[in-house]
């Protein structure tokens, strides 16, 4: 909980207790100490001046539920930079927090999955040059067409249970199709 208003803190505390969650509190204005590991941060957006450095606690990859009091465009723009996973409008009531938590956790999980997927795709894009280099190598050394060279790489990678990208890197490293009798490589 990164909040200042005692009334809102007590409402949230009661509701989090009912949900069986444990609470760590931090000063929203604190620029020094990062939080101990938490699953979600509830942040009172109004407790932090817009023109100030962001607390290190908000730079870690934890879903943020933003409590919004002031709906001015400048505040909302500041808030969007934090990419809140969910939000609640102040003043708080007991209703709403459970939904905000469920949405935040779901959002965090989706973001994690999407990031992993994008990472995989980017890795593939990065290794396109390597694959292309390996195809050229085999075209020269085995006198193959581009299509046949690629097919050979793909089949060999499948047989050796490795990726096309990894095998391509090996081909370039040894200057030809690596001699693999064992599956250890």
């Amino acid at each position, binding site marked *: 909980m990164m909040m200042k208003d005692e009334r809102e803190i007590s409402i949230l505390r009661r509701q989090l207790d*009912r949900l*069986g969650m444990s609470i760590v509190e931090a000063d929203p204005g604190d620029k020094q100490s990062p939080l101990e590991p938490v699953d979600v941060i509830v942040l009172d957006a109004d407790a932090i001046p817009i023109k100030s450095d962001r607390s290190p606690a908000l730079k870690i990859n934890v879903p943020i539920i933003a409590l919004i009091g002031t709906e001015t465009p400048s505040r909302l723009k500041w808030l969007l930079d934090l990419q809140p996973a969910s939000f609640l409008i102040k003043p708080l*009531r*007991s209703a709403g927090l459970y939904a905000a938590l469920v949405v935040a956790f779901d959002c965090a999980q989706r973001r994690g999955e999407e990031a992993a997927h994008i990472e995989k795709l980017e890795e593939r894009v990065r290794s396109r040059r390597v694959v292309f280099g390996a195809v050229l190598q085999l075209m020269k050394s085995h006198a193959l067409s581009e299509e046949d060279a690629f097919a050979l790489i793909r089949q060999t990678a499948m047989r050796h249970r490795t990726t096309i990208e990894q095998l391509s890197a090996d081909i370039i490293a040894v200057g030809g199709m690596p001699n693999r009798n064992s599956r250890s490589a």
Partner: protein
Amino acid sequence: MIKPSIPLGLVFSRSGPYEMMAREMEKSALMAVDEVNQSNEFDFTFTPHLRDPGGVVAAYHTACDDLIRSEQVQHIIGCYTSASRKQVIPIVERTERLLWHPARYEGFESSDNVIYVGAAPNHTVVPLVRHMLEHIATDVFCAGSNYVWTWETNRVLREIVTSAGGRIIAERLLELGGTAVDHIVREIIDRKPPVVFNTLVGESSYVFMRALHAASERAGHSIPMLSCSLCEPELKLIGSDASVGCITSSAYFESIENAANRAFVARWKARHGADSSVSVDGQSTYVCVMLLARAIRRAGSVEVSAVRRAAANHRYDSPQGPVWVDPDNNHCFLTPRLARSVSDCKFEIFWEADAPERPDPYLSSLDLASIGARSENSDAVARRSNHLRVVK
């Protein structure tokens, strides 16, 4: 000396789709009000102000607004459905009034301006499913009304059943008030599930139970049925034959054996006729009035925050046994019970918890691993649920 009078709002739909239950609740509220007014134990009386929203959801807001503005009530007893309660909550929160809610509901709510006197899901569906897994079957056929009570109750059922290695054979839903049950009955007779979980409400449930009973007789085999809502007046509406054998989970049955309940039932029958029956929601409404009266007496005030504080942890030996408000979530400690409906439209209680159970509206302390199938061999149960949780 004339005692000071406290205005009390009563909001029950004497017409509309659930009028039968709401009438029972209003009758109980008025009986409790009369008892408080005639008692020497209280130095005040209640003046009940009745409002009938007619089962129209939007009318609940108007009714409560009127009670608060025109009658200056601090406390309102009423609502049967969750939809109506959700209409009332914003207005009692805004005006800092207290709604005393008698009916069981599906949980996942906890307003500071509501005292939830009806059962939470850990009081009703959880013990019922535990009994089913241990003594009947792990696979279950669900028939229910298509609204929030069924959705959430079935979700809890599914979570517990699948973690114990069972499965939901089918989930068949009927619109609220619908009576086109033939296709569901036919499917049950064809597929012969080991048990049917019935969350149909009102007329839908009565028609369904009669039709399933008739079809089972013809087919020559009966299928056990489970319910979290069936009550004595409904057994009469369904009919003595078709209503027999339904295993029902509730915090109250008319047949509870204790002095307070025997006296309560006798007073009820003296007032409403020997062939009338108390229902769980009726008894709970009576408990609402009594909890409120005691809290006002203890607080020495009708002011909401003082009454709420006075009600917290204050034990009342009600017809259903000891009841008290848990200040952590404003729900009540209640004793879960399981009973079987028998002939003469009665329930035979065969299990009750050792002590009143803490309300858990968000089921946050529900331990799935502790609810296994067939408890004869607890080692096997533990292994099984651990294994399944890993798989999941």
